[in-house]
């Protein structure tokens, strides 16, 4: 027998140290779960990009560092990604209101802008290459390629989700499913935009 057991309330029928209220939200629902899942996925992604930036900052203090002249295409990329994210936001709001045509249009525009963003990134890399700044030329160009490349890989993964959402939208889909999928895409895009802005800021101000 436990020597510290609270014997003053035998009617409780338990030796549980606290009383806890019953705030059960009910069995898990799909859209809510997917959203929570996405938010939790953003944890490791934030950690990854954060660590990449810390590595950049540490490496920058080594003697051989030469600042990288940012190609003007990254400004274009920034504008394209902001617009793409806005397109997803438009689709998200339309989905919430049930305007299916607007969802289609918003998604199409957002996706095309995202593809244009990837194109502008390739253009920027090519521009650096032409200026004699290949991946391995100096640490700044290595970091530029690594940071933008990792970001682009995650955008491509997002495009797979975008593609699937459009496929679902083309078929007979429940409005709730569409709304959930569009919402997930939109949040992911806003996150990637935020990451891009931070990376861009680091490359610009901590060159």
């Amino acid at each position: 027998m436990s020597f510290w057991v609270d014997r003053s309330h035998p009617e409780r029928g338990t030796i549980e140290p606290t009383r806890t209220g019953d705030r059960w939200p009910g069995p898990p629902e799909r859209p809510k779960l997917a959203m929570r899942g996405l938010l939790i996925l953003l944890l490791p992604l934030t950690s990854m990009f954060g660590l990449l930036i810390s590595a950049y900052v540490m490496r920058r203090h080594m003697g051989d560092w030469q600042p990288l002249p940012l190609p003007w295409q990254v400004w274009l990329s920034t504008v394209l990604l902001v617009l793409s994210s806005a397109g997803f936001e438009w689709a998200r709001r339309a989905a919430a209101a049930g305007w299916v045509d607007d969802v289609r249009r918003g998604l199409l525009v957002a996706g095309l802008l995202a593809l244009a963003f990837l194109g502008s990134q390739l253009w920027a890399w090519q521009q650096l290459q032409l200026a004699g700044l290949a991946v391995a030329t100096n640490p700044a160009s290595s970091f530029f390629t690594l940071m933008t490349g990792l970001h682009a890989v995650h955008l491509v993964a997002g495009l797979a989700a975008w593609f699937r959402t459009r496929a679902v939208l083309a078929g007979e889909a429940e409005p709730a499913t569409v709304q959930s999928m569009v919402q997930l895409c939109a949040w992911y895009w806003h996150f990637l935009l935020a990451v891009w802005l931070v990376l861009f800021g680091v490359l610009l101000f901590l060159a």
Partner: protein
Amino acid sequence: MAYVPSADAHAHHEPQSFVTKYIWSQDHKVIAIQYSLTAIAVGIVALVLSGLMRVQLGMPETDLVDASAYYQFMTMHGMIMVVYLLTALFLGGFGNYLIPLMLGARDMVFPYVNMLSYWFYLLSVLVLMASFFVPGGPTGAGWTLYPPQAITGGTPGAGWGILTMLLSLAIFIVAATMGGLNYVTTVLQARARGMTLMRMPLTVWGIFIASIMALLAFPALLVAAIMMFLDATLGTSFFMPAIIAMGRELPHEGGSPLLFQHLFWFFGHPEVYIVALPAFGLVSDIISTHARKNIFGYHMMVWAIVIIGVLSFFVWAHHMYVSGMNLAFGFFFAISTLVIAVPTAIKVYNWILTLWQADIHLTVPMLFAMGFLVTFVVGGLTGLFLGNVVVDIPLADTYFVVAHFHMVMGVAPILVVFGAIYHWFPKITGRMMNDTLGQLHFWITFLGTYIIFFPMHYLGVMGMPRRYYAYEDYEFIPQSAHDLNAFITYAALVVGLAQLLFLYNMFWSAFYGRPSGGNPWRATGLEWQTPDTPPKHGNWGEKLPVVHRWPYDYNVPGVEQDFIPQNEPRPHSGTAEGEHHKAEEGRS
């Protein structure tokens, strides 16, 4: 017992064909078994490698292993044991099996992602094993993979070996992220009615916090692996300084090997606790069940897990005191290392106080749990030595370090793995493991690992450096050290072979063991209250359980039975709480 009828009972269709049931399975229990068997298989490879290394160290005249092979075996042994065995087994194996059952859920919340997680893990293991067969063999860089030597000619496996290792780690990290996503979301979203966070078994708490840590820490290894991959293949200079190797100037300049060490240990130290926290949780539940007593200081135990989880991200550089890092950092990290010992010590005291005046049953799982306690204390105390800069400097890179980390994160968690397998095996298979073989396995393993690792402390204090392939021609190493090395090798071979007892017991008992019934240990946790043993797909049949109490109601005063399952309603007395529960029952 309390259950609520559940609308989604039929949503989980029982898979019909052999392939969907056992291979492309989305059932958390099958995935858990797949994870566990794969981890154990790859663990046996690592065990055999350690045996080969011990033969070389104890009987160098056999010439069984040459210098390159020794470094390759050492690297693979370390990496497999830490990442591919322990991490995969605790999170992918026990996490997968126990989280939904202990929380009263039907499955993980993302079963498809869960299945992918296993197949990515298997792929990472296959890539790792493939590195034994690539030109030059596996990497021999040491499990920490420090550049520049990891990717510089002269190190065994500096070409294909290190690349396959980095690729395999990247795939493993994808697998672990998919798994971690599932575990965390399931714990937060899929708990049964009444299962508040502060009513979760400590096993779930340990795995939950470890999963969050894995989500935050593994990206550091991923970033480091990608950067090193680029250094090795494209000639970038993230980590590679200007260097002349074998008379040839390499195309790198200015990179920082220290940067890699920071990234590696930012992953590497939390990794220690990613392994330790699930072990803490499992051992708490085993001790409480077999001591027939509630865990002492449940809230403190939960908060200690959370605090250890947070602090473990602020101690990484205590692995780097002799790396040339700024010594002011050393001061900070020595302090934080001592601070993290406080919540850890709280846990140890609480386990001991749980045992105090308890009705201890010396079953096989309990023996392993108590073996863990002792081993963890011994390994933890030597950690206090190494955590202090001035003591660490003479002891760094000696066998003292080898003894420390094998005790604290090799032997201690493995004892928990064994204890937990003996404990939950009846739920997984519906059969008991053989007790006599289990006892024999425990005593040989427990005493044997002491015989192996305890003398290493002395070898370390004497100054015997680690990571050497042979010690014959050093004047400062006396004959007695060689004798001790031979002795350790004999013990290691016996302990290694004794694991066959366990494997035989496990596979034999799975088919021919004594039928166990649903709750052989008379335990309170929800996983023991399933309608079927082993639980069927969907776990709970028609009705989901309702939780009315914490998981540690053992020997409650005034109750005849010495345990009360978590889904047993409270007595409906005149108290407000009783009325509340009565009202709840009526509604459900």
